């Protein structure tokens, strides 16, 4: 993935809870074998409604999605993250993410920003009132700042994931440094452990 240090941009307020990954990218898009080009499918059911927040011109070009709690629940489809990235989002803010979705985000380079419900509500209202509101997500300092809205909060990001974002590191490359340990573990597995052979 590409390194990410700070993201300063405007935001789209998606004031809905329990936005599952079927909504983020409907399954008809999952037939594709490519990793790119999913932006057109992002929220495609909801975007059919001209009033849907993503269709509003005042939010064009925004790079942060502010969503309600339980964002990205359901299906493990990483296509949901690819669709958000391909559309132009770099971070998603929510009080709570689906576990698999959040992991997929950190693998693909989309920053999941968890904030308290109270902060999320304030941010939602601020972005709805002022679509041009500038937000900064700072990976290095683990902060979300929107000065004009009086928001300046930290968010959880473990040191390892933070380092990978800052350096744009390939997870698999890091694991392959431990090939010896993997081999040693394998030699200790019981003989009756199942194989598909």
């Amino acid at each position, binding site marked *: 993935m590409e390194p990410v240090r700070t993201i300063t941009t405007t935001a789209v307020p998606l004031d*809905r*809870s*329990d936005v*599952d990954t*079927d*909504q983020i990218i*409907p*399954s*008809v898009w*999952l*037939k*594709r*074998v*490519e*990793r790119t080009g999913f932006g057109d499918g992002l929220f495609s*059911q909801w975007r059919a409604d001209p009033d849907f927040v993503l269709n509003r011109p005042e939010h064009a070009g925004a790079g942060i999605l502010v969503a*309600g*709690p*339980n964002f990205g*629940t*359901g*299906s*493990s*489809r*990483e*296509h949901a*993250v690819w669709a958000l990235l391909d559309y132009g989002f770099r971070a998603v803010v929510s009080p*709570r993410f*689906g*576990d*698999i979705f959040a*992991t*997929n985000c950190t*693998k*693909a380079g989309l920053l999941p920003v968890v904030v308290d419900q109270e902060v999320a509500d304030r941010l939602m209202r601020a972005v709805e009132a002022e679509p041009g509101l500038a937000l900064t997500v700072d990976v290095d300092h683990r902060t979300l700042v929107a000065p004009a809205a009086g928001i300046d909060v930290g968010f959880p990001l*473990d*040191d*390892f*994931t933070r380092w990978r974002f800052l350096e744009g590191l390939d*997870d*698999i490359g*890091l*694991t*392959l440094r*431990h*090939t010896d*340990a*993997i081999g040693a*573990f*394998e030699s*200790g*597995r*019981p*003989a*009756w*452990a*199942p*194989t*598909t*052979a």
Partner: protein
Amino acid sequence: MGRQPEQRRQTLSEKVWDSHVVRAGGRSGEPDLLYIDLHLVHEVTSPQAFDALRLTGRTVRRPDLTLATADHNVPTLGLDLPLADPVSARQLEALRANCEEFGIRLYPMGHANQGIVHIIGPEQGLTQPGTTIVCGDSHTSTHGAFGSLAFGIGTSEVEHVLATQTLPQRRPGTMAVTIEGDLPAGVTAKDVILAVIGRIGTGGGAGHVVEYRGSAIRSLSMEGRMTICNMSIEAGARAGMIAPDDTTFAYLEGRAHAPAGKAWEEALDHWRSLPADDGATFDREVAIDAAGLSPHVSWGTNPSQVAPLDGAVPDPDRLDDPAQAEAARRALTYMGLRAGTAIRDIAVDTVFIGSCTNSRMEDLRAAAAVVAGRKVHDGLRAMVVPGSMRVKAQAEEEGLDRVFVDAGFEWRSAGCSMCLGMNPDQLSPGERCASTSNRNFEGRQGPGGRTHLVSPEVAAATALAGRFTSPEERP
């Protein structure tokens, strides 16, 4: 595996976790590196992972711990015909070519062992207690019914497991959902898990592995336990697990990939050591009285929006949490329902019996018993999709296909089918379906489709009545 006794009393998930740590994440925040015993692969979430392996010049470390099948994108009728959708055909061909190139065993469409990935793992005896199992599919939690630590992963992680047979993972929290007592007559495993999700919510298990415990859980068959663990993800849990016991061992013994002879005895010794130690503590605990459970039906667009079959569609204005109230309002609009409508007064257009939640032999037998000698309601579309070609063959041997067909059901071949709306089996806009699947999300079974989650028994009875009803009240 082969772990040393420790002083601390451990839960089932902690034991399985600790016995698979290749490398403990010492440095600040670095996750544990976990060994993966079994990697299940399907056509939808794997092509980009194989492409990435080729791009980086990496290979599959353990093809012998990997098994692939085609399930999400396959038609369930006309298997001998060319696929109508060229994009789907390309994806299935990609799986075939990838498995051939990397030496992975594949059960493709039409194969006697093909089926939904979470049906065939247990069926083949590959799903075993104390193992770690992953798949690029959130319902991998199903396998936890055997006391394995099994969880869904994204495509980047699929690539990671293919290349290294490991995953860097952060240790999840532990959560016990304990259901004591006897389940009342007519209450199935599906009703239990729908009630649990209704109680703890779609985020109730977030960050945790749920261990289902208590006499009501122990009384369930392996099929029922799989139904429970399957929908753990609908409560947001990382995984769901049930301690292995004699029911588990009886299910496994003699299956194709289960150990045999002396190896079986060795495996049993290990498996018997897996249940949580007496006095082990959980980060969170939820207790539910089995006697208070009843058949459930979902009314909304997330799986926590459920009501008893005897109940009514709730009034959003009476919900305490404003976010839940707003979600309920949106759901009722989408579902075309009015607050206060009795669940039994909701008429359905379609009944779908299938999916990794409820398409095993026990599910089909239960549904067949309800419809035997009766007829599907006039104008209602009803279909049964066995979870695997082996389930299909077994059901046909028992004559269940005739029971369903005589009643007016379509009898199909194995696949995910109408659970997820990416193959030809879909709802039309506004079409209302009683479904034994796991997700009632907007458009899940086809754009504009309206899904109500139910047990196989209630689905079967509803197919006869044309509206939600129980087997006891069927026409």
